[in-house]
């Protein structure tokens, strides 16, 4: 009787181990369950063209929010995303990074272009009218707060949500990677999204 119980335990353990590796194929950053359709939008891109999200179906889109006067968080995010693309090798061609400004007053198309190019020439900075940008932020649950730091010069900071939104090839929001998610984990999750598309 005791032997049979042991046998059951061992069998269950082996079964769990055999299924275990499948769990290795899980996403590492914050999964959005159930996935929802990524709200479509049109904005002005730093390459001078109009950017419409729905035209990028078939690619994995990594979307972040920030601004060019930001010294710490934004350049860290962009440098990490550049490393993610490097890690992906040839697969990087099927990934588009977009960075939506939270500071349209100061971030011109030229500024955004120079900023994006310093990290990765394929990155697109996006801007638009304050109303358009508010709409996009609402659609993705992104908040911002402007804080004047120097009353004399009027210099200000824009605090903002700094997660990266992963949109899959079918146009669904799948993952939110909070600021500080490792390059390895982000690359891992992008790879999973890319293999999904091949199925």
């Amino acid at each position, binding site marked *: 009787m005791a032997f049979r119980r042991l046998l059951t335990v061992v069998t269950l353990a082996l079964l769990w181990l055999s299924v275990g590796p499948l769990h290795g194929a899980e996403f590492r950053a914050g999964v959005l369950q159930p996935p929802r359709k990524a709200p479509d939008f049109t904005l002005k891109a730093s390459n001078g063209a109009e950017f419409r999200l729905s035209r990028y179906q078939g690619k994995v889109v990594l979307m972040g929010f920030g601004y060019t006067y930001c010294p710490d968080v934004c350049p860290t995010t962009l440098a990490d995303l550049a490393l993610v693309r490097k890690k992906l090798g040839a697969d990087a061609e099927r990934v588009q990074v977009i960075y939506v400004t939270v500071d349209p007053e100061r971030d011109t198309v030229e500024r955004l272009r120079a900023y994006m190019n310093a990290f990765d020439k394929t990155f697109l900075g996006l801007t638009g009218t304050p109303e358009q940008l508010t709409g996009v932020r609402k659609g993705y649950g992104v908040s911002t707060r402007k804080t004047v730091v120097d009353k004399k010069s009027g210099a200000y900071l824009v605090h*903002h949500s700094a997660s990266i939104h992963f949109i899959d090839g079918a146009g669904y929001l799948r993952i939110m990677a909070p600021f500080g998610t490792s390059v390895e984990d982000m690359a891992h999750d992008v790879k999973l999204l890319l293999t999904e598309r091949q199925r």
Partner: protein
Amino acid sequence: MNGNKLSLTLAAIFFLATAAACDRSKPEIRLESAWARRAPMAGGGTQSGAASERGNGAVYATVVNAGKTTDVLIAGASEAADAVELHESYEMSGMMMMRPVPKFEIPAGGKLEMKPGGYHLMLLRLKRDLTPGEKIKASLTFEKAGQVSVDAEVR
């Protein structure tokens, strides 16, 4: 006998005072692995480069206090920017926020690690673009150690 005791005491006091003074003159502040984040916005992406259009940057370093007393980082400066401020990035209600910090305390035998998304030296209004591979000079002012200079590689 009494005279002897007094001179001994005086000698002891003198010795201790000198030791303390030595300690203070040798605060042993060290800056390790200093680096600066690339920043392309010195000219604001245009050629005009008006002060208000000049972008910002960040320098990170680990401050090691090998001394026996707490030291305090109170200011910074760099040839690459108009001004340097001590800053802290932190998360609040789902947003990444940033605030100036008046000073960073480094306890005796302890260290302060500046890193992306945490403590950093903010470079205000860059005088030139910071491109990967080059080095910029920065100097940090400590209450006890005074000025400590460092070369930060741009990454």
